[in-house]
């Protein structure tokens, strides 16, 4: 379709429609297709242990959550310090169904796609409610509102008997066409489910961002008064942004619940919220790719830090809590260093590499 061979050398668009394309050239499209194919095919060729598959699944769930966070913080410019709570809303939606119906009720095991969507909607609902102060307030106050939502969420889970006071609530094994998903295939099965969700959500968000309903987010971030003058309602758009973020978070939460076959408060604390923010920033706020780079980078860093502190722990005798110390230290350093030296995140490196390869050998 897109036939312009010279696009690599400059902007030759003749219509807005052309400029709005997701894939500028057919090469881009085929690269993307090949990449997706590789993502779907690689587990068939390598025998991956459950341990590593869990890590991969974990990264992918974080990707979904960070897509949501990126929508609200990156595109709409509203800081959310309570994103883990929204993820928790999704997970605890599944958990409360398990508490009421029993963890192997047919609704949980057979209708899990429905459960994922329901969790997403619950997340969106809570997101919009927390975003309500946006009708009157600007960013700083909103950040504090999300923080207080995080604290209220943690308290509710920790002190309510219905949620087992934050203890793990188990979720049953799901059913697929061939029967119950066995323990050995569990992580592989969820790898594919999460991957499909990411592809759907990723393209959904990418498409959303080129319609008026996505571009209004960016408009409000860049200048809310101008957006107001152009007929948008900045307050409602902010509430809507929180709703979108809540939806992604809810979906991520439900997937998290199914993946771990249990829901506990530990995965949805303030600390985890900060983790998500770190991922969004390291990846690159306001870019969709950033949502993929960030979780990858932070999780890999996390694993390396763990390995390092294990290694150090075997050499030092007194270093018992080195992991708890090194983890926040490395997070903090990564956040601060990225903000000071590369505020546009890894996505910017990707852009630089890409344009280098594209223009090679005829650089400027």
């Amino acid at each position: 379709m897109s036939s312009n061979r010279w696009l690599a050398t400059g902007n030759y668009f003749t219509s807005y429609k052309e400029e709005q394309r997701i894939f500028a050239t057919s090469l881009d499209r085929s690269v993307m297709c090949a990449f997706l194919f590789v993502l779907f095919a690689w587990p068939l060729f390598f025998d991956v242990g459950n341990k590593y598959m869990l890590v991969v699944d974990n990264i992918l769930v974080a990707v979904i959550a960070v897509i949501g966070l990126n929508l609200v913080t990156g595109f709409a410019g509203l800081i959310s310090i309570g994103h883990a709570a929204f993820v928790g809303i999704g997970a605890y939606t599944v958990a409360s169904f398990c508490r009421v119906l029993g963890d192997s009720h047919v609704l949980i095991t057979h209708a899990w796609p429905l459960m994922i969507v329901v969790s997403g909607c619950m997340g969106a609902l809570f997101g919009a409610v927390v975003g309500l102060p946006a009708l009157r307030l600007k960013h700083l106050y909103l950040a504090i509102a999300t923080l207080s939502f995080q604290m209220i969420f943690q308290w509710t889970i920790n002190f309510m008997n219905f949620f087992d006071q934050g203890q793990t609530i188990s979720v049953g094994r799901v059913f697929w066409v061939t029967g119950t998903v066995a323990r050995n295939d569990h992580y592989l099965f969820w790898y594919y489910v999460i991957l499909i969700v990411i592809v759907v959500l990723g393209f959904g968000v990418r498409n959303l961002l080129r319609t008026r309903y996505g571009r209004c987010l960016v408009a409000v971030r860049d200048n809310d008064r101008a957006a107001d003058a152009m007929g948008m309602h900045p307050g409602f758009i902010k509430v809507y942004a929180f709703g979108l973020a809540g939806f992604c978070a809810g979906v991520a939460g439900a997937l998290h619940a199914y993946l771990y076959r249990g829901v506990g408060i530990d995965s949805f604390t303030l600390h985890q919220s900060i983790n998500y923010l770190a991922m969004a920033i390291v990846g690159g706020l306001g870019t969709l790719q950033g949502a993929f780079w960030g979780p990858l980078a932070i999780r890999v860093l996390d694993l390396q830090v763990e390995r390092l502190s294990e290694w150090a722990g075997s050499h030092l005798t007194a270093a018992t809590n080195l992991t708890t110390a090194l983890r926040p230290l490395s997070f903090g350093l990564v956040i601060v260093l990225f903000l000071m030296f590369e505020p546009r995140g890894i996505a910017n490196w990707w852009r630089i590499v890409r344009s280098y390869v594209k223009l090679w050998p005829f650089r400027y």
Partner: protein
Amino acid sequence: MSYFFQLVVSGIVVGSIYALSALGFVLIYKSSRVLNIAHGQIIAAGAFITYALTVWVGIPIYLSFAMSMVATFFLAMSVERIFLRRLIGEPIISVIMVTIGLMSILDGLIYLTPFGTENFSFPPYLPTTPITIGGVSISWTQLVGVIITFSMIAGFSWFFKKSTIGISMRAVSDDQMASMAIGISVPRVFGLAWAMAGLSAAAAGGIIGNITGLNFDTLHAFGIVVFPVVILGGLDSIQGAVVAGIIMGLIQQFASGYLDGNWGLNGTGEVMPYIILLIILLFKPHGLFGIHEIERV
């Protein structure tokens, strides 16, 4: 009835500490519009330095209290100099995120010391028998803590009303351009605001450490509870921080005194400030004493 007065007394004790913690927070916000999320960590650092100097080095507690205030004075000042001065003029989200990053870094540094996981308590240096008047008792550490808190708050208000540096800090928070024009160095004022915040944080930390013992979780939780306090008082008002701190302390004590155990509720004292925070944000977003910016979105 004496139960009620007991709650009032402990509410005022807790509230005055909130006021002192919120004071530092408001100082930073007022001068440089930075929301310092790492405030709890600075409070904790102040408490730990006091403890280390008192018990490990063996300096008298009053002296080490003062020395830890000096130490956090310079700690906060260097934090501003190293991290935040580069970010002047950057979007507000980067600034907030840098303080979140700082929070993580300070967390990590504190976890490297024994203070991160273990509990310590100051050796008793005041009479341990509480004072009891008409069924209401207050311990000596609480009493001394409240006295120190109020004298510090009085000192700060004197400083902002009368001293030249204090007045220049107020000028900067009013209008940076105009204060530059009359010869005030704005970056220096930012640094000073952080330093003063560090100083008050160390004082708060020392007092909390004396009353409740040293536990990192409790101490840095104070940095988060400060948010409802400053929102209630208005983000940029020092007197608001003091009044709201005491109100919040009272609310918390009443909540845990009367609600806990009834209707299956537990730990309401922890969550009540945040519920109030959300309500305030919805109905009176600029708090009790905050400046109404005509900027509705």
